Each structure stands twice: as C-alpha cells, then as structure tokens.
C-alpha cells in the first residue's frame, strides 16, 4: 500500500461514516494547506478561516470523491478554489503579487515557487525541529538510522528495505517504529512549548 492508498483507505472509512478517520487526514495535511494558503492570504486568522472552510468543504464532498486523483491533489484544488473565492469576495489581492493560480489544480509549481508568509519565529521553530530530527537520526544505532532513512528519505517500501538490509519485514517494521519513537521522544518537549500553536 502506497501513501496514496493509505489516504484512500482513510477516505473509504470516512465515506462509511467514520469521522475520526477524517481527523487523521486533517492532522496529516493541515500544515501543507496552511502553507499553501499563507501564500495567498496574509492575515493568519483569515488563513485559519479559509483552511477550516477548505476541510469542511472537502468533508462534505467526500462521498463524491472517487479517487481518480490523489486525495491531496483533490484537497489542494479545494483549498486553492476556496482561497480564490475568499479573495474575490473580500475584494483583496493575493498576498504574493506574482500569484496566478491555474484552473487546473494539478499544477502547483507556480505556487511552490512563491515565498510564503512565515514569521521569523515560525521559521526558527521549523529550523529547530528539522535540526532536532536530523541530530537524533545521526545518533541512532546504525540499523535504526538506515531503516528510517531508507523509508522516509529514499521512500523505499518495507519489502525493499528488508531486501537491502537483509532482514525480515517484521524487523524493518520494528526498526522504523523504534526510530520514530526515539525521534518523537526528543521532539515532544519542543512540540509542547508553543503556547497557542499546535502540531
């Protein structure tokens, strides 16, 4: 099962009435959607409003989602349209002057090249978290480090990692989990110290 299939599995659960599965999708994509909208809209409270509207629109439309495109592609398209409608209703201009979103929501290159409106504080936090994750990975025992790097950075499947590391898939599963837990343990104090922000 690929990441797209994991999303499809969660989508199927939502379509069958499991609202908690949608919470997982929100947690997974909220930061990406926030970054996308922050390139269109300047005020953080407006971004929150449009982001909430995006997710609620997606939730309501989910029974019609048939999986022809990846869930995140579909969600990004909803976010772009919601952001564009908000800008038009409010009679505002996009926060990034060069922003010109195509109707085909599949192409995000233009958006990805824009500068987002991260505050220096949030940029520092991002840097701190990324540095902590990389530092913990460097300190992990070699077999855990290799497993998590092959999975997260190289994108290998468990089968491919098992073949590369010459070990059973169950061992790969355990190594990746232990690596994640070790990193998460070091990250928790950092993730908990952001007052009115949450991850």
């Amino acid at each position, binding site marked *: 099962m690929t990441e797209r299939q994991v999303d499809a*599995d969660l989508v199927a659960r939502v379509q069958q009435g499991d609202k908690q599965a949608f919470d997982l999708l929100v947690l997974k994509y909220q930061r990406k959607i926030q970054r996308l909208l922050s390139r269109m809209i300047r005020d953080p409270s407006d971004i*929150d409003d449009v982001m909430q509207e995006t997710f609620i629109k997606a939730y309501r439309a989910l029974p019609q989602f048939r999986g022809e495109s990846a869930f995140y592609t579909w969600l990004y398209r909803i976010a772009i349209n919601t952001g564009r409608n908000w800008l038009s209703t409010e009679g505002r201009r996009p926060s990034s002057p060069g922003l010109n979103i195509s109707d085909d929501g599949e192409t995000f290159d233009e958006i990805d090249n824009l500068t987002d409106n991260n505050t220096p504080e949030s940029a520092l936090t991002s840097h701190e978290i990324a540095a902590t994750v990389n530092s*913990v990975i460097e*300190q992990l025992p070699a077999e855990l480090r290799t497993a998590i790097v092959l999975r997260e950075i190289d994108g290998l499947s*468990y089968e491919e990692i098992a073949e590369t590391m010459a070990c059973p898939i169950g061992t790969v599963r355990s190594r990746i989990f232990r690596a994640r837990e070790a990193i998460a343990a070091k*990250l928790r104090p950092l993730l908990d110290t952001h007052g009115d922000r*949450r991850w």
Partner: protein
Amino acid sequence: MTSVDLQNTLLSDEDMATRDAAPSLSAYMDGQGHSREIDLADSQVMQCWSQYHVIRDALTDPSSLTPVSESFAARMSAALAREPAHGQPDPQEKPVASRRPGFWERAGLAWPGLAMASAVASVVWIAQPLLGLQEGVGGLAQCRKLLRAHLRRLI
C-alpha cells in the same frame, strides 16, 4: 552521547494502550497493515500520528513545518463534530413507511383489479370465436353479462 538511549524513549505506564497501537500506527502510515487494527478514537493515537508526520515533514518537506493555531484546531474539531457522519441515513429524512401515499400511489391500489378485468375481457374476446359464443346476439349478450359480473366483483 553517541547513540540515543532508547530506554528513555519508552512511554509511561498510562500510555501503554497507545504503545500497543503505536507500532501498528507506524506501519500503517507506511502502507503496511490496516487502519482497522487501530483505535482512531484514542486521542493518544492522534497525537502519535501527528508527531510521526512532523518527523516525516521534517525529513521530506521542512518548509511545511509550521504549527497551526490552537484556535484553528478547536474550531475545526467543533465544526467537524457538527457535520453528520457519511454513509448513514439522514435523520431529517422521513422514513418511507410513514410517508403519506401520493395520489398516483393511492390510485395504483385499484390497478390490480382493473388489470384483472382487462385480462378477463381479453380472454373472452379471444375465446368467443373458438368456444362458439358467437352464435347470435344472445351469445354476445351472455358474454357481456359475464364480463360485467366479473368487473363488479373485481372493482
């Protein structure tokens, strides 16, 4: 420190239930296993899921590492709670059984009787030449009488 002390990363006793779910959750986000093995209603599972994705974003998409506001999280949760679950009957919709039948539905109740009368008439019409009922006006009159009697019984 040359390596991370994994013993210090173990969750506390009260988080044991989450710890049981965490390996499955970790595998699930990599496309291994099935979400049915995981209790999604558990808030600790949600927290774990969130942290694992922060790790993933830090390694693959560090620019997306910006926390969301507490107010967004609270409002999002409240807004979602107000939404009906999919795949279930709409409570606003009246059950079919309690619906008052429309005109055509009520008219339809007489339809089987009319259909039966029509069938009898057709049979008599076709059988008339075969059974010799065509002998004179009397035979035809007898046939009409029979048909009327049938119709009276049926309607």
